[in-house]
């Protein structure tokens, strides 16, 4: 088997008396969608924070493409090609989709104007349209503010943004939690297109039919430990529920 894109082994994290993670393992291969599920309090959020660089484990190792890494901030993770879309989206609602795509990474013009900080809006606009087209993100207008888009479109812009700057892995924290049926479907399509474009996706979700529909593999956390790592094609909702509620930690097959 090839080298995992991102591998976390024996991750422990304690907050006071609470053991959020008790030796969790996690693995993402290149070009796959991995779902991370677990009941409330299973340690999903903590694990995601550690994977995305927002928190540090007390014990355990993180490897990116086989090399041990230590993230001290989300920026470190971004430099390794890993970006996270949080539930609160982290978009600027008053700016246009294109401006949001380039937030903090604005393109400036060449020459003297560029040195003075003049924006190259035409190129940013063009690249944004290309990126949205590549991922099949439909927006009613490129020029309106993000706030006037639907929740699903906002989510799509946030994911497109992460996929644009994360060359290897996009982590999505409950991307469909607040969306309707059609919009949810669009976002799941988007996950597939991101994967097909060569970027792996980690999907945190509560919605098990959805997880089975879109993911290649499902990772189940229970009480801070990894209790199952299933191929989505072989698993049923009943399997997932059983693992989430009564699964026992065991050595996972590589």
């Amino acid at each position, binding site marked *: 088997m090839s080298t995992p894109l991102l591998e976390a082994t024996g991750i422990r994290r304690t907050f006071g008396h609470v053991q959020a993670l008790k030796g969790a393992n996690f693995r993402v291969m290149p070009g796959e969608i991995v779902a991370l599920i677990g009941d409330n309090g299973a340690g999903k959020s903590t694990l995601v924070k550690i994977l995305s660089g927002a928190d540090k484990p007390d014990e355990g190792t993180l490897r990116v493409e086989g090399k041990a890494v230590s993230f001290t901030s989300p920026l470190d993770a971004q430099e390794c090609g890993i970006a996270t879309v949080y539930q609160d989206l*982290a978009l600027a609602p*008053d700016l246009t989709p294109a401006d949001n795509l380039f*937030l*903090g*990474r604005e393109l400036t013009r060449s020459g003297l104007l560029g040195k003075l900080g003049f*924006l190259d809006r035409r190129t940013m606009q063009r690249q944004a349209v290309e990126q949205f087209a590549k991922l099949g993100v439909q927006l009613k207008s490129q020029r309106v503010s993000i706030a006037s888009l639907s929740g699903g479109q906002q989510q799509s812009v946030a994911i497109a943004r992460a996929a644009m700057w994360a060359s290897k892995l996009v982590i999505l924290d409950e991307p469909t939690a607040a969306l309707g049926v059609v919009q949810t479907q669009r976002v799941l399509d988007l996950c597939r297109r991101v994967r097909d474009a060569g970027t792996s996706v980690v999907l945190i979700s509560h919605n098990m039919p959805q997880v089975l529909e879109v993911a290649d593999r499902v990772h189940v956390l229970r009480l801070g430990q990894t209790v199952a790592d299933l191929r989505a094609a072989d698993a049923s909702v009943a399997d997932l529920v059983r693992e989430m509620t009564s699964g026992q930690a065991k050595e996972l097959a590589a």
Partner: protein
Amino acid sequence: MSNELAIAPVESTEDRLLRLVAGGWIFLLLLALVAIFLVLRPAQFGSAYNVQQLFINAAILLVLAVGQTYVVITSGIDLSVGSVLVFASVVSAKLMLFLSGAGGTTYGTTAAGWDIIAIGTVAALLVGVAWGTFNGILIAVTKIPPLIVTLGTMGMALGGAQILSGGVDVRAMPELLVTHVGSGRILGIPTLVVIATVTAVIAGIVLHMTRFGMHIFAVGSNAEASRRSGIPTTARLIQVYAISGLMAGIAAVMSNARFSTTTINGHAMDNLATISAVVLGGTSLFGGVGSVFGTVVGVFIPIILLNGFVILGIPPFWQTVAMGAVLILAVWIDQLKRRLRKRG
């Protein structure tokens, strides 16, 4: 599953028109006011003298309001602009008086040369930037709300100016400053108007066309998202308040030149006047939205109203009433726009 892989369409004409009307109604109001007064009193209102007075009256306020625009776009507020203006003008005037060797009680004009005026001007700008930076650090680093910080520095700067001057205006300015800047002209245009125009144009270009300007909008729209995206939000906030202070410094020099005296008691309402101009111009108090052009329009509305009322013989007190109503209307429309946007 339907895979509609359409490329995102560009904005339709209808959308653009809607946006123009929503954002441009205050500009239409300004044009309407001008048209009404022109029709009713073409000779007086449209006279070259009157138009020139309108622009001169707008100049100093416009410079302050441009700085305020930056601040409000970050969803902040700067109540200290008028007091910083007073402080900077007193420091500048005192310094120029001292350098020209005249006594502290000199009245009228001094024979100070351009070198002394340059020093006095730089001093005013530096003092303005210093107050602004102080505001910015308190707001961005210690996270005290802008309303409180600038309310505090408003008092400190005004009190400081009164301590420095003993509460008495410095009533002597360099003759050259008064004649060339205060009442002088460049290519037939009053110098004060030239300064205000150049300031507003540069500020508009920086705000709408540069990365720095984009960061200001981003910080005002969602500070946390901006920070996570790698925008140096603390530095940007400090810079924005420093710019507002710089504008107060420029306005201080303009005020000294125009009135040939410091005007310690004449700027108590500047903060509210600039904030209402900024809000009238479509800049949102919630941050993230705004333009320098809108602020220019917002500055002119009260000035045109007052001027028109005076010419028409309506008691000028009505201008204050009308302005209050227009301001409330402006904020109401801003909120309506936001609600419509959420629904759309």
